[in-house]
C-alpha cells in the first residue's frame, strides 16, 4: 500500500490500457468509413499479437485479409453493408440494437453522458450513437485526448455498460452474419473478440 502513489496526474498510460485505446481507435476508423489503400497496407504489414487468444487469431485474420483487399472493394463493401438510409443490411447505430426506450433515445443519452465526461460530440454527419462514435469515445476515455486525460476505470465502465455493451455485441454478430460482408466479417470478428475482453476485464476491476 505504502509504495503506491496516491495520485499521479500525468502518469504514463500502461501499455495494455494504451493498447485498448488503439483497438478502439482502429475499430472506430474501420467502422466510420471504409479503409483506404494506405490503411489497408498498414494493417497488412502489422505484426502478430502475442499468444493464441481469440483476439490474436482475429487480428491475424484481419491482417491477412487486409493484404488481399483493395480500397475500391472495401468502399463498395462498406456501402453495401452500411450505406443507404434506413435500408442498409446492417445498422451502424447503437440505438438499433439497444432499443430506443421511453427514457430517451439512446442518442440523447449518449450525448448527455459525453457531456458529463467533458466530451462534446463534434460531428455533424455522425449521430452520437454511431458505433464508430461510441468506440471513439471509449478511445478518448481509455487514453485521454480531446483536451482531457484518461477517465477513471469506473467512468469508462459506466459509459461502456450504458452505451457500448448493450449494442456492440449484437452489432458485430449482425455484421459477421451479413451476406454482403467479406472483409468486414473479419473486422466483426476482431471487434467481437476485443469486446469480449472489455466485458470481462471490466468485471475484474
Amino acid at each position, binding site marked *: *500500500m505504502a509504495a*503506491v502513489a496516491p495520485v499521479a496526474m*500525468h502518469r*504514463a*498510460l*500502461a*501499455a*495494455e*490500457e*494504451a*493498447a*485498448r*485505446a*488503439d*483497438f478502439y*481507435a*482502429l475499430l*472506430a*476508423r474501420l467502422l*466510420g*468509413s471504409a479503409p*483506404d489503400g*494506405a*490503411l489497408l497496407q*498498414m*494493417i497488412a504489414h*502489422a*505484426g*502478430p*499479437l*502475442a*499468444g493464441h*487468444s481469440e*483476439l*490474436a487469431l482475429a*487480428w491475424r485474420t484481419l491482417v491477412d485479409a487486409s493484404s488481399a483487399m483493395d480500397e475500391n472493394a472495401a468502399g463498395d463493401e462498406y456501402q453495401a453493408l452500411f450505406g443507404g438510409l434506413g435500408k442498409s443490411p446492417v445498422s451502424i447505430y447503437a440505438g438499433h440494437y439497444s432499443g430506443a426506450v421511453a427514457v430517451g433515445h439512446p442518442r440523447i443519452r449518449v450525448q448527455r453522458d*459525453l457531456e458529463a465526461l467533458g*466530451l*462534446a*460530440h*463534434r*460531428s455533424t*454527419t*455522425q449521430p452520437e450513437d454511431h458505433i*464508430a*462514435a461510441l468506440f*471513439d*469515445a471509449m478511445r*478518448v476515455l481509455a*487514453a*485521454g*485526448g*480531446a483536451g482531457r486525460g484518461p477517465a477513471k*476505470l469506473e467512468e469508462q465502465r459506466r459509459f461502456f455498460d450504458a452505451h457500448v455493451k448493450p449494442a456492440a455485441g449484437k452489432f458485430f454478430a449482425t455484421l459477421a452474419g451479413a451476406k454482403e460482408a467479406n472483409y468486414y466479417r473479419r473486422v466483426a470478428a476482431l471487434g467481437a473478440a476485443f469486446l469480449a*475482453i472489455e466485458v*470481462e*476485464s471490466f468485471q*475484474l*476491476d
Partner: protein
Amino acid sequence: MKTTKSTDRRNFLLAAGLGGAGVAAAVVTGRKPASKPKEEAVAASKEAKYRESEHIRKYYETTKV
C-alpha cells in the same frame, strides 16, 4: 484489495494479447511497434501520449468527440 484487482485486470489484458508489442498502435500511430515503447511511455507528455497517423487523424477531424 485494489492492488490485487488491478493486477488481475492487467494480467488478464496482457494475456488476452493487449499491451506488449502494441501492434494496433503501429497502425493507429503509423509507427513501428517495437520503436522504443518504454521510453515513450515514460516520457508520455500530453503530446506523446496519443499520436495519430495521417489517415486516422483525418478520420478524427470529422468524428471528434
